[in-house]
């Protein structure tokens, strides 16, 4: 009964999915640094979200934050699984030829695109949440499990590194 009240108080799952698909997708693109993979994991996130929708409590956060947290959890699971796979298949993976990958974000300059790819997922994550999705610093800090000061520092450092990578790309 409690869960029903919670869901009744907020938007329906279809409404939330429609409203926040772009945000979740953008977040995962930045976090994963791979557009195709981001599409896969976005679908996986919404599948999981549908199963857990009854647990969503509007009083504890917005649907967008909740979906991004879920997406983060899905991405972390993927990274862990990928790390295990790579460790198992280290020899093969080292010899694996690099494929031509599609652009990460349409509309970015090639220099910025390359610099963005060169960043760590942690840097790209904070850029996605704070700059692209424009989430509040307290919300992002809570999502990442860090203080607001650390969150601001992380954002500045990520932008600093992005600038440095762009400079390196131009120099090359």
């Amino acid at each position, binding site marked *: 009964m409690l869960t029903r009240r919670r869901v009744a108080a907020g938007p329906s799952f*279809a409404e939330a999915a429609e409203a926040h698909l772009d945000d979740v997708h953008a977040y995962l693109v930045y976090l994963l640094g791979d557009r195709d993979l981001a*599409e896969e994991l976005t679908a996986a996130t919404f599948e999981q979200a549908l199963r857990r929708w009854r647990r969503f409590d509007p009083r504890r956060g917005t649907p967008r934050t909740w979906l991004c947290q879920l997406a983060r959890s899905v991405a972390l699971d993927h990274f862990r699984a990928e790390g295990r796979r790579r460790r198992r298949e280290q020899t093969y993976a080292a010899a694996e030829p690099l494929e031509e990958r599609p652009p990460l974000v349409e509309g970015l300059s090639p220099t910025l695109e390359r610099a963005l790819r060169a960043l760590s997922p942690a840097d790209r994550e904070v850029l996605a949440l704070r700059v692209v999705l*424009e989430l509040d610093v307290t919300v992002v800090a809570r999502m990442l499990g860090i203080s607001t000061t650390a969150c601001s520092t992380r954002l500045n450092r990520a932008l600093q590194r992005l600038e440095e990578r762009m400079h390196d790309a131009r120099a090359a």
Partner: protein
Amino acid sequence: MMPAPPEPGLDVRHWELAEKLRAAPPRPSDDLRERVRAISLTAPPSPRRRDLPPRRLAFVLAPVALAVVAGVAVGLRGSDDSRETTSDRGALEATPTRIPGPAIGEPEASEHSALSKTFAPGANRRLQQYQAQLRVRVRNLDRLGDATQQAMRTTRSLGGYVVVADYGAATRRNGESLLVVRVPVGRVQQAIFRFSDLGAIVSQRIRIQDLQAGFNALERRILSLRQRIARLEERLADPTTAPEQRARLRAQLLAERQNLSAALRARDATLRRGRLARITLTLTTRGEAAAAPGKPGYFERTLSDAFEVVGKVLTWTLYILIVAAPFVLLALLVLLGERARRRRADERLLEQTG
């Protein structure tokens, strides 16, 4: 145009870069939109029977289980206590000589009648010395005088007499009178009831001492002395007894007769002690103790029992909490440590992957 800063703490030289990123957000493909739309149109899974997740359920069930365990423990302990009380009372009633009564200032009027009945003199037909001490509080000095007079009249009406009567008023308000009376043992119970009605019982002490053994010894000694006197008289009556021996026998006879009369006096005194109870009654106006409470009713008893159980449950809960607190704290620390470790591992994963 200068773009708006994403946040106040952001370095100015990064504003333009941030604006570039914000201006070109990644867009999902139409295929993904269709997939997500299809997912959202799927019927949601049937609601789970249990709304509470297991962890919350544990948080709810743990205190309940704790309370149940504490209740059972208290119940078992309580039944043990009641058994002990019963056996103690049994031991008390079986005590043949000294009956422990409540201390001064412990009103137990509700039990006095039961005690008096249990220790009613002559119940086992043995010779016993019965002594009682009563402290009764009266309202004021006027009532003190009346009560003293009434107690003396009661004593006489029961066939007894007053040994000591000491009435005194230390101040205009407070006073005390002491009466030491002797009443026939057969009517001592009646006397105690009447004295109790003079006011509120503050304390009482009843003492019974068995005199039968001493009385029996005196009887045997009297019999023995009489036999020895008879033998001495017989030898003195014999004409063959020498004059020197006769003089020695007369001296012995005199001594034995004196012993006999002493033994008879002692026996009579013992009989008197057993026949008359000694009651020391103190009537006072001082409110040194509350009036003896009446027997509590069913509601009061139930309420008292309930409070007692609640108190015991709280005590046990506190006890368990004190015992369990270090373990709970340790578990909490482990949980927090595990969460921190997992967070650090996630951060490392995101820093390294790419």
